[in-house]
């Protein structure tokens, strides 16, 4: 392994977090985050698929012809997603209904494809599995954070438990789509500010980006 355990975990959870740094897998991270429980299920489902597809594709990486590798990757991913979908349908029928098409849409989630292309292509199976696993955990954490804010302000609950003890008015807007865009925009802003500061503590402006 070229990088140590710690580096791998830190890279996936923080410096190259798939959602807030790489801007991948946004579709589902916005759509399911109005409730904590949905986000947790979605995040764990994605983690499972990313880890196992990383493992499988890394095992197969020398057998797949380059020209058709995209379609093979998609098929492997789709197979695991079907597994997750069936499990969620059987064990948690209510949440499955609430998530609707978004579980199946894990197939086209760019995180999984991105990990398969960028990491599992050239790394041994176990490392690829860990990489996929922690990429998924990084995604889950961001999802839970956004869901925490949206559920607490929108419904006054956390995981369905009432935390609105003062009986304040809830903000309907937090449950609606625009707030998800605002929150993720702000989160990206905060994270990139913190990381920039670490890079050049003098506070010099970084390279101009668009």
């Amino acid at each position, binding site marked *: 392994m070229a990088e140590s355990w710690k580096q791998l975990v830190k890279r996936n959870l923080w410096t190259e977090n798939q959602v807030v740094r790489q*801007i*991948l*897998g*946004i*579709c*589902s991270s*916005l*759509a399911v985050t109005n409730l904590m429980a949905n986000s947790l299920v979605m995040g764990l489902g994605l983690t499972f698929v990313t880890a196992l597809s990383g493992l499988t594709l890394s095992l197969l990486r020398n057998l797949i012809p380059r020209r058709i590798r*995209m*379609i093979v990757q*998609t*098929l492997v991913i*789709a*197979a695991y*997603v*079907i597994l997750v*979908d*069936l499990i969620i349908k059987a064990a948690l029928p209510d949440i499955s209904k609430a998530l*609707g*098409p978004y579980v*199946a*849409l894990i*197939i*086209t*989630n*760019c995180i999984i*494809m991105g990990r398969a292309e960028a990491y599992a292509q050239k790394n041994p199976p176990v490392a690829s599995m860990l990489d996929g696993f922690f990429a998924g955990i990084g995604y889950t954490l961001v999802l839970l954070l956004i869901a925490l804010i949206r559920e607490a302000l929108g419904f006054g609950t956390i995981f369905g438990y009432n935390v609105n003890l003062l009986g304040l008015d809830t903000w309907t807007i937090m449950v*609606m*789509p*625009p*707030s*998800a*865009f*605002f929150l*993720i*925009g*702000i989160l*990206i*802003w*905060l994270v*990139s*500010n913190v990381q*920039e500061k670490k890079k050049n503590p003098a506070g010099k*402006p*970084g390279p*101009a*980006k*668009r």
Partner: protein
Amino acid sequence: MSGAPPISPIIIFFASILTSNMILSNFLGMCSFISVSNEYKTASGLGKAVSLVMILTMAINYAIYHFLVLPLGLEYIQYIIYIIVIAASVQVIEMAMDRFLPDLYLKLGIFLPLITVNCAILGITLFMVIRQYTFLQAMLFAAGSGLGWWLAISALAAIREKMARSKLPRGLAGPGIAFIITGLMALAFIGLSGVFAVQ
């Protein structure tokens, strides 16, 4: 939703452009929406390509769902079938364009493979299955969703082109501000939701 009274296809068409826009209210196709919206021309080109693929794959997937998946009881592997259809039809469109419309192909060339992993394409097929649309409803839903996606990405790209010269707080430039703008656009589109709703 099979028990609900049928919704007029015309309403579905306009609702999927405006009030239940694929990007602004269903969050589908975000990856390319954020990363390919720096320039109006390319964004609009991608929008057109996505609309085209949406209409084509919807027709094929509708036929597959009703004549293959349902009669043979293949629901458990339907996702694999749909994604193969999408990948294959993107490939076919790419080859056909290369042969018959070389100009357009050169313009869109790099985006076509990206469309396969655009969640909006798979998304509309899944919505069609979940909401049990009829053929006419499904086709107008696909056309409306495509137009809505095109509208949203063109609008965002046009705004971002204007923004290129303005000063932004450090760290917010790039994707951060794109999300904030999208949020504002979504708010504006919610204003229309009194006109017609589909869900």
